[in-house]
């Protein structure tokens, strides 16, 4: 009986951690790659081999550093602007009325569409890429922060007011903490937008980064490089989100972060 129980919970654990899905995907990929040649669909092993190769000659590492650096720059810059702006816009209704129409217009302009303009304005160097990433991750953060402020429980504000708190204090001690959960969601969404955007920007212009690696693989008929770049991106994105999730769970538990 007890043995059975531990067995079933062990199976549950394995299912839950997702290992089976991963094994299945890699197996499918492996079987599929048997049918095609390396230029069309490289096998998992060939992908790992070219990753090793790229690590050895240092390109993969320098591309990771370049891409991650841009993501972090653009994303942090975005947090610095989007969160305080969102808090202010969310808190003052007339400002919200002014901002909302502009917001709902630009929300639907994807960052990629602005590449040409940004290249023209900021040049072909780092600035234009960071600016694009900034733009891409700004909106999820901004919109979510505004929503967080707007969703503040009115009774908490009233409770604070009855205890004598003036508006500024209510803002910092009640409204901002109430918005933390939404801000956190915005920051996570912003990160994924940033990663999507960095690849696109690097594919279009530039001479390093994971996007460049993927794009340039076609020049050398090295499909496995593209695969290596894609896998690296997935791993980085996954790890980054997991780290954020971990921080959220550990540190922001009482801010209703799930």
């Amino acid at each position, binding site marked *: 009986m007890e043995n059975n129980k531990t067995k079933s919970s062990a199976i549950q654990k394995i299912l839950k951690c997702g290992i089976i899905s991963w094994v299945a995907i890699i197996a499918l990929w492996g079987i599929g790659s048997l049918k095609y040649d390396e230029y069309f669909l490289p096998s998992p092993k060939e992908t790992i081999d070219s990753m090793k190769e790229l690590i050895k000659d240092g390109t993969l590492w320098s591309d990771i550093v370049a891409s991650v650096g841009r993501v972090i720059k653009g994303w942090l810059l975005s947090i610095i602007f989007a969160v305080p702006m969102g808090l202010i816009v969310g808190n003052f209704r007339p400002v919200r009325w002014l901002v909302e129409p502009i917001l709902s217009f630009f929300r639907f302009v994807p960052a990629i569409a602005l590449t040409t303009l940004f290249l023209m304005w900021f040049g072909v160097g780092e600035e234009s890429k960071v600016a694009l990433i900034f733009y891409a991750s700004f909106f999820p953060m901004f919109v979510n922060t505004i929503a967080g402020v707007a969703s503040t429980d009115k009774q908490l504000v009233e409770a604070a007011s*009855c*205890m004598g708190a003036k508006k500024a204090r209510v803002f910092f001690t009640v409204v901002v*903490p109430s918005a933390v959960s939404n801000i956190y969601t915005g920051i996570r969404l912003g990160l994924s937008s940033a990663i999507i955007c960095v690849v696109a920007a690097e594919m279009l212009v530039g001479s390093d980064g994971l996007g460049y690696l993927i794009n340039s693989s076609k020049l050398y008929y090295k499909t496995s490089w593209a695969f290596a770049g894609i896998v690296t991106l997935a791993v980085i994105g996954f790890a980054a989100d997991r780290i954020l999730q971990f921080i959220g769970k550990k540190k922001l538990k*009482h801010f*209703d972060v799930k």
Partner: protein
Amino acid sequence: MYIELKNINKSFGDFKASDNVSFGIEKGKLIGLLGPSGSGKTTILRMLAGLEKQDSGDIIIDGKNVNKLPSNERGIGFVFQSYALFPFMTVYDNIAYGLKVQKKDKKFIKQRVAELLELVGLPDVGKRYPDQLSGGQRQRIALARALAPQPELLLLDEPFAAIDAKVRKELRTWLRDTIDKIGITSIFVTHDQDEAIEVADEIVITNKGRVEQISNPVEIYLEPKTPFVAQFIGQSAIIEDYSKLKGFEVTENNASAIIRPEFIEINKFEDSEYHPFESSMEDAVVEDVSFRGNSFEVRALIDNISITGRYPLNASRLKKGDKVKVLIKKLYTIDENTTNILVNKALDDSELYYI
């Protein structure tokens, strides 16, 4: 009067939440605002706290007109139905909030919070977060938080409505004791008459934005001033034409009457023979009997008037279809605006016998 409301009017769109409300409260009293939902009781509380502004009329607290004072300058403790504790702060920080606003020093805050945790009987929960407490505990903490800045007036908006029945009863008594201990003037809103009767020194009954009656619980029960109060309090039922009943004559304008189970004495047909008021009893047929724990509740039909009364446990049982003799001791007669107590003539004439 410590607190006075003078001709308060308040509308939300077409809905009149307060219709010329005026009443006063003495210092140190515990007042229950009782009424059905939508009767405007919470609006009165919120206007007192400054969370809502009246359209017209004056609110005076301790001789001072507070009409223009915002909620953060009124010095009123408010306890919400849904607790409204800050979920992102520990219990300690929740209670300390008002003290930090007052810029008290750390040592004082620490001491005061400990004192309040002691008062509400939860001395060890300071480090916990609200979501680690039960509903009853949260409401105790909410009370501690409201009391921390030493308000002059404590307002409680249906403080126990979200708490399950058993804990609610405990909390009522506890609230009563705690408020007595501090001696703070308090007003609480409730739609539960048992709660109001049990806890309040005085009850303000509201209906459709108006105040119907202000009296102590016993008076509210025994001498309802308006037809609404007579119907609202107790287990009241309306009798449309009471003139058919023995011992009651129709008084001017008062066509219908209100009856409660405690006004009725039900006797078995055969037991009533030697009853002093046998002649004033009505014949009735039992319609339904249900067990109420400490007695039976009996519904019986006198001609076509349905009445409900109590029947003791120790007597021989009644069942559906039994013939019974019913003595109706009194009624509350009502017209549009007034209520009168009408005692059965037989009892009225022979008060000596009837104790």
